């Protein structure tokens, strides 16, 4: 292989990619995509909620005494809880509407009332309606059913503010009233029956001679760092490699391929393209990783990613780019248009994207069967092993070495096979090849 020619091809591919609009868009969109949830939340918090929500309450408890409890809680909410420090309204205001209690022994009347209130919710007149059963103040008995229940009905279950208010205010008041009805001293019993809190903490660490618990940001970092790392490696490798298939198809369609083959061998051309892709991935990785590391450093969180993990991150970025890139190059050579490439590449894309679907199980149990298997399976190893490396307490030293070696070996095999497919396919015009033909090219050369 002629290194000079490969370098020239790689340089052309690299500069063509980084000057393209899609690369510039990736530079902007990737951080937005990765921090989209946080940004949306921050923006949401900044904008605030100045709405007024109307909630109907039908209190069928004896003396309708719980309506007042809810009204007190709503008043407190509207007066104190909806404003930020500067007095700006950030959360929705509630307005209560009292509904005359219905005779619980007349199920038809109860159903009519429920339907009427539901229709008002559907029409947008109400956020929700609350039904307080007539038996809620009595000690719970089996078979009491709806009568001993407080029901909150809405078609916006995601909006939880009023439901949370209800949960905070009403059940404890109900218990107090039951105690009072039974003549028991509630305060004392409450103190005795309050269970000790069980809280989740970080580890204890020594900093500037002081021993203290890990900060809350440190605990968040334990979860955020693996997610950011896995997203980063997944996206930079795909952004660097997925255009290769389109480029190869374009070179075939525009008849550039044979012009190039007058100067370089198909293998040199393919390796040049892969190196160009690696360059693009590393540029993205350096920009985003550098940016993320700087931010982490600024917030004193840089210690959550070790130097070894950074080294492995870049190693797997390079190897992953070569491996995925060879698949894309082969697909481009085997197909004659972009549509064919998409369907040709779909099964491999599913395997490459597999780690994204199992983030949860791997985060929960990094050394479990799913995490272990996927971190040694070459197509998913670059993402899953990097994720496991940064989840405390990390992995034994041999694991990234073995995963790296197996991924490297698989990459060599992928590049070799892709080279054979590329050599035959690059000059092929007309209809693209099927899987059987591609396999034949690999086996026979």
């Amino acid at each position, binding site marked *: 292989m002629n290194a000079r020619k490969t370098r*020239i091809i790689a340089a*052309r591919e690299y500069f063509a990619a980084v000057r393209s609009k899609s690369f510039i868009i990736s530079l902007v969109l990737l951080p937005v995509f990765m921090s989209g949830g946080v940004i949306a939340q921050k923006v949401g918090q900044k904008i605030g909620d100045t709405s007024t929500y109307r909630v109907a309450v039908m209190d069928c408890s004896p003396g309708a005494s719980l309506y007042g409890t809810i009204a007190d809680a709503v008043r407190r909410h509207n007066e104190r809880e909806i404003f930020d420090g500067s007095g700006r309204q950030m959360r929705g205001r509630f307005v209560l509407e009292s509904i005359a209690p219905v005779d619980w022994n007349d199920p038809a009347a109860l159903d009519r009332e429920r339907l009427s209130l539901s229709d008002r919710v559907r029409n947008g007149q109400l956020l929700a309606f609350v039904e307080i059963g007539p038996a809620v103040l009595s000690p719970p008995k089996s078979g009491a059913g709806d009568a001993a229940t407080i029901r909150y009905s809405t078609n916006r279950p995601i909006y939880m503010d009023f439901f949370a208010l209800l949960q905070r205010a009403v059940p404890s008041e109900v218990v107090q009233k039951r105690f009072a009805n039974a003549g028991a001293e509630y305060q004392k019993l409450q103190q005795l029956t309050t269970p000790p809190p069980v809280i989740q903490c970080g580890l204890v660490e020594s900093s500037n001679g002081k021993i203290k618990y890990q900060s809350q940001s440190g605990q968040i970092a334990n979860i955020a760092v693996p997610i950011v790392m896995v997203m980063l490696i997944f996206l930079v490798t795909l952004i660097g490699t997925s255009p290769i298939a389109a480029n190869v198809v374009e070179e075939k369609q525009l008849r*550039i391929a044979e*012009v190039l083959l*007058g*100067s370089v*061998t198909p293998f040199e051309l393919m390796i040049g393209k892969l190196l160009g892709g690696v360059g693009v991935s590393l540029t993205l990785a350096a920009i985003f990783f550098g940016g993320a590391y700087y931010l982490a450093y600024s917030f004193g969180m840089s210690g959550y990613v070790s130097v070894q993990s950074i080294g492995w991150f870049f190693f797997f970025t390079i190897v992953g780019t070569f491996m995925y890139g060879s698949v894309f190059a082969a697909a481009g050579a085997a197909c004659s248009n972009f549509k064919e490439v998409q369907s040709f590449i779909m099964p491999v894309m599913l395997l490459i994207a597999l780690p994204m679907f199992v983030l949860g199980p791997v985060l929960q149990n990094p050394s479990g069967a799913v995490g272990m298997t996927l971190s040694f399976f070459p197509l998913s190893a670059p993402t899953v092993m990097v994720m496991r490396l940064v989840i405390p307490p990390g992995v034994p030293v041999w694991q990234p070495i073995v995963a790296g070696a197996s991924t490297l070996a698989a990459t060599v095999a992928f590049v070799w096979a892709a080279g054979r497919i590329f050599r035959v396919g690059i000059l092929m015009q007309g209809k693209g090849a099927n899987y059987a033909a591609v396999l034949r090219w690999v086996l026979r050369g």
Partner: protein
Amino acid sequence: MHAIEMENVTKTFGAHSAVEALSLRVPVGSVYGFIGPNGSGKTTTLRMIMHIIHPDQGRIAVLGEQSCAAANDRIGYLPEERGLYRQMKVVELLRFFAQLKGHAATRAEINSWLDRMDLSDWADRKVEALSKGMSQKVQFIATVIARPQLLLLDEPFSGLDPINAEVVRKILLELVRAGTTVLFSTHDMAVAETLCDWILMIYKGRKVLDGTLRQIQQEHGSDVLRVAVDWTDGSNRQLLDLPGVAKVTDLGNMQELRLLAGADRHRILELLMQRGKVEHFELTRPSLKDIFLQIADGDES
């Protein structure tokens, strides 16, 4: 010394035999024409010379090297189906192709080529802005900019207007005078006749002619008469009955008579003068096209 040597080269694609036991030698410094109808195996042969595809059998040596990689930088190749990166500027593109051949083209050198091809104003424009003809000229520059010792051109004149075809022809002859060997394929036999020192004709994958134009004409061609006669009333207008005439082709205003070896041209003229007023009487050598048609006819029969 030969720029290209091929010995018994065979290439098949599935059941189709593209090239069969082809041998050729291209002398250094010659203009070697590779002619034949479409689908005869010309492009396959050029690709094998460039080692873009590999022969099933046989041996190919280029510029004395068995491996194309060793000689590649000294070869300029213009494929029949050609294209350029549309997003690159013309200057960048020419520099890129020169670099691939190990030649660091200066801006002055690139400008000089663009000037000769009347493309100076397009140097800093993207390829996508060029017309088809302009793109072809840029493609030609990209092929020759590294001053190769051997030029392989697959249908270099196709798609060029007569003015640009003449520019390309002149540049090719200049390069040959400077020592470059040129092998080009064409299905336009008239171009081969005027430009080539040496001609190889390939038909259905097999070599059917190989030599200088003179040698080919002597070996394969019979003399041809072109006549125009103003017939007198009642005269015998048949020409095939003339002694020594093998075939008559009506060209419209003229008739073409293919003569048998040893035919008496004076006797034919006498007989024609008896039958009418001879307005045109021309003895010509057979064209490559005639010879090819003769061979093709024989092959079909």
